[in-house]
């Protein structure tokens, strides 16, 4: 089957924003290595955690620094600030004026980018192995040495507003996702978009960015992941000489405590109508535990449940909606476990022309009811587990993917042991645990259902800009 639809209905809420668009393929992410040696890990005196993942196939190394701060750590009224600062981190320091770092990366044939999500902000370079020390010197320097001038900050804010236009304003499906998330999270900051609300982004300034930077960017609030053709011992020496010189900020709390959601009591619906919608879509988001907040075994059961319901052509939803009854052109399910606070289980379907949302939802509800009542077939369970565990092996083929996997997990409350044991936990999931997860968490009261429909009322006239 075509992969176009899968992507179209992918979980948009996990979107991490990058400083420059990159066209790289999306690696299949797995949650851990399986047969490889465990990565080395140590902590510098100033609190910086360092993780080293050796991969000696190519003389290339990836440096990735992850700050434990994301959009969910912003002050209300300043949405988009974490992401704005991510862009501004490329504006130079006293030691290395604007452009020098990026030009150096290019001159050595490297590449770089950065990304922001709800819980973290990350920066990376991929370079020939002998350049690692130099990269670490640059990266350590901008941990506290950033210099911002309005002449750099203001055009960059316009750049971010164009990023908003590209990702959100031009894209009705992304606008629907924003509305669903805002309705799902009544109290927790995950209800705010990572990129921010437009009216708040356009008011962000230099002082906001610097205050946020001083508050959150410090070695004791970061994790450094080095993946590639290196050994832990040499990385330790280099890290001590560069990052080791940066003073910690003891005022940063070790735990991030955010306002939590009340127990959900009512199903909600939102409808976004836009004249450009040519394929209606229904998406249902359930508030569910993340790997960090779940009871033991629960998060792995949700991984299995999502794959069973929406992973591929033989998943329950795809079969029921697309193959057995031709009601939809596509149907998926997804669960994003790496999240500091409770996360989302997402079901999505694109009805065929002439099919009502209610017909599609009826089938979705009956699939959920069935999974919640009856134990999953043993062969289905086996197939899904194999697929999930295989992802972990496929991920070993890609050092950047591995670095992202470790960084993402370590900045959302998980440990290296959690990551390493993920395949074992998947293997241990029982049919009854899957049934229980469906019954407990796929409860409509915990959900927001969003409808993307065509706006047929020919409206004219535009506001702003």
């Amino acid at each position, binding site marked *: 089957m075509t992969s176009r639809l899968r992507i179209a209905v992918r979980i948009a809420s996990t979107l*991490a924003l990058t400083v*420059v668009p990159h066209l790289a393929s999306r690696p299949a992410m797995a949650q851990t290595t399986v047969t490889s040696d465990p990565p080395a890990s140590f902590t510098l005196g100033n609190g910086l955690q360092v993780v080293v993942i050796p991969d000696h196939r190519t003389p290339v190394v990836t440096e990735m620094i992850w700050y434990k701060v994301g959009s969910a750590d912003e002050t209300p009224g300043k949405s988009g600030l974490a992401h704005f600062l991510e862009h501004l981190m490329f504006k130079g320091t006293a030691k290395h004026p604007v452009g020098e770092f990026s030009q150096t990366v290019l001159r050595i044939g490297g590449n770089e980018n950065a990304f922001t999500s709800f819980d973290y902000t990350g920066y990376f370079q991929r370079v020939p192995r002998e350049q690692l020390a130099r990269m670490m010197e640059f990266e350590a320097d901008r941990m506290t040495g950033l210099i911002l001038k309005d002449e750099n900050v203001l055009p960059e804010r316009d750049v971010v507003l164009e990023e908003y236009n590209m990702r959100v304003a031009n894209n009705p499906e992304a606008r629907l996702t924003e509305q669903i998330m805002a309705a799902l999270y009544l109290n927790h900051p995950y209800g705010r978009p990572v990129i921010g609300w437009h009216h708040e982004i356009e008011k962000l300034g230099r002082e906001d960015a610097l205050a946020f930077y001083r508050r959150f960017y410090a070695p004791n609030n970061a994790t450094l992941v080095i993946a590639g053709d290196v050994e832990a011992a040499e990385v330790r020496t280099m890290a001590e000489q560069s990052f080791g010189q940066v003073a910690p900020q003891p005022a940063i709390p070790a735990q991030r405590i955010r306002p939590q959601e009340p127990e959900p009591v009512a199903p909600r619906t939102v409808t976004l109508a836009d004249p*450009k919608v040519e394929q209606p879509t229904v998406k249902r988001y359930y508030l569910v535990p993340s790997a960090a907040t779940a009871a033991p075994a629960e998060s792995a059961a949700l991984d299995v449940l999502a794959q069973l319901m929406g992973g591929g052509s033989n998943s329950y939803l795809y079969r029921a909606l697309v193959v057995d009854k031709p009601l939809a052109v596509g149907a998926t399910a997804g669960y994003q476990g790496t999240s500091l606070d409770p996360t989302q289980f997402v079901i999505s379907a694109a009805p065929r022309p002439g099919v009502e949302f209610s017909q599609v939802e009826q089938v979705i509800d009956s699939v959920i009811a069935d999974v919640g009542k009856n134990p999953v077939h043993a062969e289905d369970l086996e197939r899904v587990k194999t697929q999930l565990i295989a992802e972990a092996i496929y991920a070993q083929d890609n050092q950047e993917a591995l670095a992202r996997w470790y960084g993402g997990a370590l900045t959302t409350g998980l440990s290296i042991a959690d990551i390493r044991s993920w395949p074992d936990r998947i293997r241990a999931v029982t049919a009854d645990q899957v049934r229980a997860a469906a019954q407990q968490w796929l409860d409509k009261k915990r959900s927001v259902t969003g409808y993307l429909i065509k706006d047929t009322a020919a409206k004219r006239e535009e506001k702003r*800009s």
Partner: protein
Amino acid sequence: MINFSTNARRFCFAAVTCLTMLPLSAAPSQAAAKIQHLISPGGIEAWFVQDATVPLIAMEYAFGGGATQDPADKAGVGNLVADTLDEGSGDLDSSTFHERLDRRAIELSFASTRDYFRGSLRMLKDNRDEAFDLLRMSLTSPHFDSADVERIRSQVISGLRRDTTNPSALAGRKFLETAFGDHPYGRQAAGTLESVARIDIADLKDYVRRVLARDTLKIAVVGDIDPATLGQLLDKTFGGLPAKASLTPVPDVEAAKPPQRAFVPLDVPQTVVMFGGPGFMRNDPNFMAAYVANHILGGGGLSSRLYHEVREKRGLAYSVSESLLWADHSALFIGNTGTRADRAGETVEAINREIRKMAEEGPTQQELDEAKSYLKGSQMLSLDTSSKLASALLQYQNDRLPIDYIEKRNAIVDAVTLDDVRKASQRLWGQGLLTVIVGRAPQAAAQPAAATPPPTAKN
């Protein structure tokens, strides 16, 4: 931008202008030294790197022809074949076929690109026999059962319907039409709403019969398998295909002469601009000079001229870049950006200014030195996974490069002179641009092209 989504599959469905987008980079010297030219007992050839670091095998392969072999009134046949080959074959129906793939986490996919019908196969090494056997069945005995074809057709049509209001898709479509007119390159691999509706099952079968044959097949394999076993698997998998393809000849074509400008109205906050013109064929003796020139003007990273002028200085866009694209019968350069509707005119003007400047003056010595340094240093970076390496080895074959190209490449980069790049710049950008603008603000966009300046030059 990366999602930790378990559903994500790789491959190119940006699709708008997928001629040939692989960056011109090469493998690390150690990988280069290990590339074998494998010939199976049955005479099937492959470029092969044996590597046991990770217990998997990645194969990329291509048949000649691709979307150019779609009948003129049925654009999208190859694409529909690609999406339907895994929906049942041999003695397996669609559901059973997918079950067999999924049960062993075998990743199998196909794509119809401009000149090639491409396939990817990735598996854990223990599952190699099953994986290659499923591929053999899908290539040699696909069912194309009506229910399966209609299901996939509905997905393709849904995507095409979405494209009708997607500014980037509209821009890509219009750009290729403008550049290539009625030539097959002017069509989209996915086809149109009308053409896809016209495709019969007989068209799919006919496409398979004409295109999937051994004489145009190119294969690249990287992974944990020995050459003897691989040779046997290749024979089993591809040996049953017809010896010769029967392809409709495709004429060479030069892209339309710039400057030209087209406007597509769409009510979106961000205007999408696509620009380009005739490029350099891969076998052009000055190809590398053009590649260097393009890198300086609009290549990747955070310091091309377009990046500085359009994004960094003026804050006009989040994304602005340009690439060289080359195909078997033509070549282009193509760039794109997205900008606020009320500043679209300013953006187009800034791009034109940079292009003119580059055409007239060429780069500085320092820019040339840095570009060369980048191109040489980046060799190994794009090839650090088995799949990326396999894709590159396939690309080199399609580009008719020698198997030791990777070792020769640095010398080719080094040989490029400032004068070469000036000449290439003049040839690329001296005539101005083909520009497609999708958005609101027709007053800023619909002006005539640069060659005939508008009566009032300001917005």
